[in-house]
């Protein structure tokens, strides 16, 4: 079930793991924020959603490393638990950060792709 994991520290980000398929994006905190931008989710739903979003399947340890750091930064917040599962939602600060980060990535990818065109 949990296969093809990205296993990494969540302090620094954006680097494909050795063995990860080329083209898979692995920045666990950003992936979690992007997933929660679509609505509150608990851990397992986030793993599934992130895999649909970009093909990267986060390991449970990696996911909770990212969740803990994002919660510490105030970019996500916990909701009341549903049985033992606890959903999280993105905060206003988290949305601001996500938007700024995605705009930067968008500009970066546009310029990068333009440079690749003549090659």
């Amino acid at each position: 079930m949990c296969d093809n994991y990205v296993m990494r520290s969540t302090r620094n980000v954006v680097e494909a793991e050795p063995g990860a398929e080329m083209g898979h994006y692995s920045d666990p905190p950003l992936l979690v924020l992007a997933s929660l931008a679509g609505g509150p989710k608990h851990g397992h739903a986030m793993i599934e959603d992130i895999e649909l979003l970009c093909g990267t399947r986060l390991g449970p340890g990696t996911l909770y490393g990212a969740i803990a750091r994002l919660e510490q930064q105030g970019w996500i917040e916990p909701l009341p638990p549903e049985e033992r599962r606890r959903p999280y939602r993105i905060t206003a600060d988290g949305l601001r950060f996500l938007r700024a980060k995605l705009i930067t990535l968008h500009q970066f990818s546009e310029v990068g792709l333009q440079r690749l065109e003549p090659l």
Partner: protein
Amino acid sequence: MNPGLAHLLIRLYPRRWRERYGAEFEALLLDCDGGNRTLLNVVWSAACERISPTQGGNMDRDPLSFGAVVRRPSALIPLAMSLTALAIVMGHIAMYGHAREADEGAAAHLWQILMAGQLPVLAFFAIKWLRRAPRQALEVLALQAGAVLASMAPVFYFNL
């Protein structure tokens, strides 16, 4: 995943982390398979959490506590430099004895660089933290002063 294995894996995490995330993380593990990748991922993440605690959510430690202040790079770097300087002196004494040499060697130069190089970092720490957390900053500065004195002691004791 087997509930017993999930429970065992949770135990790898620090107590404070378990108190905050343990129940929900265990629920997530029960939804995952118990394959090697899952095990490795959780063991690795637990090791990272022990080395560099997240302190997320409700686990927040007071950011102005001594423990939090002393973990700041500007507090740790001078301590590391003083201890490295001490190790260099002690290593030099162990290998070559404590007879005074006419010409300063590489060890002496390294010691001088480490001792002088930490001064700007110490100044930065003092300027930044004495205002924010005076008592904790003074405690850290006392620790740093102790490390400086410890690294200077053999130099003056043996008149190197």
